[in-house]
């Protein structure tokens, strides 16, 4: 079960002709797929398209009604290979993943798919994780589209345009026998808007039809001589067919303006931001009327030569607004203009930055520079937004970065605290990280980890550091998500085969937590549509690891630190795997909290545990926070006015995971920590015993209080 439930939202997928959909961009894409008559959908979750997968999961019954097969792919490569169903059969299919990281993984399948081409419409929906809010390296999916020659759709970021482009994308794919890639930027995925619906379409040719009437065409398979033919086909047949379709259907848009000597060419996805910049300059209005003519490339690849030439004809200069680098589109346009010997001057990365997100502020500056060099009279500085005065340095320096970190009660925190503690005994170790929540270990307060080479590649990233010349071992981290994605072979199998003597810690928290808590093979939950409860330990032993230890309660520092210590000091040679197994707290709470509330309401005895710090006992050194880093472990005013430094404080959001107490014990921190056990609906006997105990204790407490009152003269 994913972190977010779309049970309510998926009802919108049933809307029909004449009804208006209101909701998130990524949900609109899902609806567009159903309106396009897809036969199958697959993908691998990851921001910003996780919700697409979650929506499909929650819409399982609707998909079944429409005869749509849906898979949670093992990886993006699996997802992309799934599109092979559209090679021989007139089946429409779509897959989705995070890009460019997912596209990197998928690129082998993508290249094979694109080489042979498709019969049914095949669409890759890539969440372009670029710019603010991104969690990956800054690269462009555009390069993949170019190298494999798949068409890249980059629609204007309003729901109507996006939905339209999904529908047209399938037609384009079929018209040109080529897979298409729909690029969705982060904000477009999460944008709330509306569009007018059409009815969902049940595919006329079904998966059953395909399975029962198998087809093959050796000319579609990538093997010589067909592979050489494919390349020719791409440039001689498929490309022209695509261009023809794009032009006929008007997929790219031209917006006229009265300043005809200038023009702006913009990727569809950047249109809204560009228009806002123009609006702020007084050169456009909120309805999209622009004084500068616009050529909006809803198809970012291929570039349509004739359209570019037509747009540039008679203009003294055009500006290309293209985010990211290299500036493929701008270079392409330069070639088109040069070959046609057109004298229109070309601007783009000369007035705009080469790297980084094209925010409205960046565009405002770039477009102003462009227009200023030709029509300075159009620049009206009075309409521009007034910029804020600089913050006083005292405040400016005090705005701290606030990166994401482990949640309250996260079972991974005790793992990294244990690594810190074990390093106090055995010294620092080289640590290779992976992708997932556990990568927050590289940030304060843990500051652990040297490299991360990609999803599931935690152990592979330490492969070279494998030598018999030292007894010291390296530590690698891998999440359960990365493990099943590829880590079992790329990491574990590799370590076994190459006789590694190093340690891998697998974080087994029952979900792919960082992508939103989706189920995987080793999830402990029963999932009606998937097979779960396949243990990681069995898989690891299956590929030949002899030394495997499972810690079933990561919060026990003694167990966790003990397992790590054993693995790092064991005389036994060979790869060591420690499986750190406790449920993701974010997801556990989603499961447990409502149940607990229900039990309390029903009058059942429930004990809620949470931690606290005695402010008078705490000395304000914050060692505990440096070892722990829990959001619920914070600081507060020192009750002793003679001491200035703030004391540690446990917030009410504490879930009583137990780590504070464990660390106070294991690291011999201080006696400030206590655990409060709050008993809801105690039994009658319990109440009675409590009364007796409290009476005795109260008698002695009163004696202490009397001494205090005698000293200071009041009960204050």
């Amino acid at each position, binding site marked *: 079960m994913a972190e977010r439930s779309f049970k309510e939202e998926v009802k919108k997928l049933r809307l029909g002709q004449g009804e208006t959909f209101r909701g998130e961009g990524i949900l609109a894409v899902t609806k567009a797929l159903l309106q396009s008559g897809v036969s199958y959908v697959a993908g691998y979750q990851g921001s910003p398209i996780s919700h697409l997968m979650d929506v499909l999961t929650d819409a399982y019954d609707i998909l079944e009604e429409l005869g749509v097969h849906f898979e949670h792919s093992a990886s993006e490569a699996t997802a992309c290979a799934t599109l092979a169903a559209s090679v021989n059969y007139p089946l429409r299919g779509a897959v989705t993943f995070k890009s460019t990281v997912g596209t990197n993984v998928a690129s082998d399948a993508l290249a094979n798919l694109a080489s042979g081409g498709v019969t049914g419409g095949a669409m890759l929906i890539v969440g372009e*994780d670029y710019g*603010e*809010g991104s*969690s990956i390296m800054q690269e462009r999916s555009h390069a993949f589209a170019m190298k494999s020659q798949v068409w890249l759709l980059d629609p204007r970021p*309003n729901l109507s345009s996006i939905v339209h482009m999904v529908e047209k994308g399938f037609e384009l794919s079929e018209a040109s026998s080529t897979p298409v890639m729909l690029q969705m930027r*982060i*904000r477009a995925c*999460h*944008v*709330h808007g509306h569009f007018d619906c059409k009815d969902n379409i049940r595919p006329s040719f079904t998966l059953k039809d395909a399975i029962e009437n198998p087809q093959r065409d050796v000319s579609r398979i990538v093997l010589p001589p067909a592979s050489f033919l494919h390349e020719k086909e791409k440039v001689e047949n498929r490309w022209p067919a695509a261009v023809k379709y794009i032009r006929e259907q008007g997929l790219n848009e031209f917006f006229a*303006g*009265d300043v005809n000597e200038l023009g702006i060419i913009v990727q569809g996805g950047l249109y809204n931001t560009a228009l806002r910049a123009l609006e*702020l300059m*007084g050169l456009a209005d*909120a309805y999209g*009327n622009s*004084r500068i003519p616009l050529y909006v490339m809803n198809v970012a690849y291929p570039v349509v030569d004739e359209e570019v030439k037509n747009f540039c004809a008679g203009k003294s200069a055009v500006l290309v607004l293209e985010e990211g680098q290299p500036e493929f589109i701008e270079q392409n346009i330069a070639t088109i203009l040069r070959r046609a010997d057109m004298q229109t001057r070309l601007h783009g990365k000369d007035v705009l930055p080469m790297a980084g997100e094209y*925010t*409205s502020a960046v565009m*405002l500056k770039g477009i102003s520079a462009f227009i200023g060099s030709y029509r300075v009279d159009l620049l009206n500085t009075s309409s521009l*937004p007034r*910029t*804020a*005065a600089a*913050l*006083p340095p*005292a*405040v*400016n320096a005090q*705005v*701290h970065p*606030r*990166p*994401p*970190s482990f949640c309250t009660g996260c079972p991974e925190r005790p793992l990294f605290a244990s690594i810190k503690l074990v390093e106090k005994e055995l010294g620092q170790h080289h640590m290779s990280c992976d992708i997932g929540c556990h990568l927050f270990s590289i940030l*304060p307060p843990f500051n652990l980890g040297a490299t991360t080479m990609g999803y599931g590649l935690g152990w592979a990233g330490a492969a070279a550091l494998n030598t018999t010349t030292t007894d010291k071992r390296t530590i690698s981290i891998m999440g359960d998500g990365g493990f099943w994605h590829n880590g079992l072979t790329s990491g574990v199998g590799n370590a076994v085969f190459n006789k590694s003597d190093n340690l891998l810690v697998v974080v087994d928290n029952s979900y792919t937590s960082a992508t939103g808590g989706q189920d995987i093979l080793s999830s402990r939950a029963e999932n009606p549509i998937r097979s779960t409860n396949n243990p990681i330990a069995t898989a690891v032993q299956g590929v030949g690891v002899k030394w495997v230890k499972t810690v079933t309660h990561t919060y026990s520092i003694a167990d966790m630190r003990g397992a790590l210590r054993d693995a790092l000091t064991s005389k036994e040679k060979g790869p060591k795997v420690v499986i750190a197994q406790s449920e993701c707290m974010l997801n556990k709470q989603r499961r447990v909290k409502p149940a607990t509330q229900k039990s309390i309401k029903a009058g059942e005895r429930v004990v809620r545990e949470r931690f*606290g710090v005695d402010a008078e*006992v705490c*000395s304000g050194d914050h060692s505990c926070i440096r070892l722990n880093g829990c959001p619920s472990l914070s*600081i507060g005013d020192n009750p002793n006015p*003679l001491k200035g430094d703030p004391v540690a404080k446990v917030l009410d959001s504490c879930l009583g995971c137990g780590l504070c107490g464990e660390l*106070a014990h*294991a690291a*011999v*921190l*201080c*006696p400030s920590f*206590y655990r*409060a*056990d*709050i008993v809801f609906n*105690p039994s009658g006997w*319990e109440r009675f015993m409590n009364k007796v105990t409290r009476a*005795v204790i109260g008698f002695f*407490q009163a004696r202490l*209080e009397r001494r205090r009152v005698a*000293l*200071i*003269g*009041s009960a204050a």
Partner: protein
Amino acid sequence: MSNMTTAPKAIRIAILAMGGEGGGVLADWLVDMAEHEGWTAQTTSVPGVAQRTGATIYYVEMFPASERMPVLAMMPTPGDVDLVIASELMEAGRAMQRGLVTPERTTLVTSTHRVYSMTEKTAMGDGRVDAAEFIKAGQAAARRLVSADFSKLAEAARSVISSALFGAAAGSGALPFGRDRFEEAIRRGGIGVESSLKAFAAGFAAAQGEKVDVAATDTPVRAPAGQLAPLAERVRREFPVPAHGILFEAIVRLAEFQDLAYAADYLDRLKPFVARGDGRLLAEAARYLAVWMAYDDGIKVAQEKIKSARFDGVAKDVRLGQDQLLDIREFLHPRIEEVADILPAGFGRWLLTSSVAKAFFGKPKIVTTTSLRGFFSLWIVASLRPMRRGSLRFQREDAQIKEWLARLEKLAAEDYDLAVVFAAVPRLIKGYGDTHVRGHHNLTAVIEALPRVRKLSAPAGTLNALIAAALADEDGKALGAALKGIPA
């Protein structure tokens, strides 16, 4: 196309929040309200992994009812935002830093409470930023600043901060919708409606400028009476008025820690500093001498843990309900050293050499103070108080305090400014166990460096820098480097 600058414009709203704070709910309410009024509304966000407690921005635009579809932007443009809502004070700072708040345009609604950053929390001393500076900056940056502790208002209504902030947004008058429109959006949302509306009302009132009393008032300086009355009288007679607050507090704490005589000793020890300089030295010495003399040993910890006021405090902290029971379990790990410390010196010394004792103590313990067994275990430890003067720890601390005081007194006559800084070096001693050992080690290192520091041209500044360095990291790297930089 000539009237482009006069065409209607969308209202722009940026919400700065941390993951899990309900920024999304707030954005959804705003959109729902606008759409119900026939407006076109759009919201976007870049949550990503920021939902894991990181800072994130939600952006909302709303456009009046119109025949034609407007093109709405996906992100805020600096200088072009009408309403900024910050869920916490540092996030308001972030909004200002990003240039989203301008005096011509922006109403800034911010909660004044703090969710401390990791940088602030992990500091070994006080790493907190100056909240007052943020509010001052907000006043300067915004057209109108609406600030209150909306977290507290929400908590009082048993709701979440997004409701209180929504109320403040309504009360700020920055949006052209009546209060009932806002409230209807909450009702349509259908979750926790009653408590949300209560928090909304409180937020609304705060934004309308009604005094909402949430600020903690400073407790006035009060002299102790009872058996401490004569000592309080002595404070009044022998010490300057500005120092009275610290001294009253100190004698109460020391009398509780040990006894009246101990508090009297304290005043005696401060006498040499009374007539010196402008009072800064006395204030610093008074503060840190009191803290040091009331050092943290097992007896004091036990004393604190068994107090009835502490039981009540915990119950209040965990919001214990009428019909609920509470157990308090202490996580203690006294090492053999700490046990030996509170015993009579001779016995303590013997204990340190005993392997049997080491095996017996030196183990982590969970003590349930609310049980008879746990309570009396701690009671017995607390009862060692009258014998404390004979303990190993007392002898050690007392000797060090005397040595520090002697140096301080000498220094006060020779270099007053340096003495003021030197008076604060006991600040380095903190905590228990290893932390305590480290603190003592740093203190000794700084004290030993004093003769070298005195040869420099700006010794007070250097000594301050040494204290800061000692509090910079756990491994003593910064202090080591700083000490190396001082010529012998």
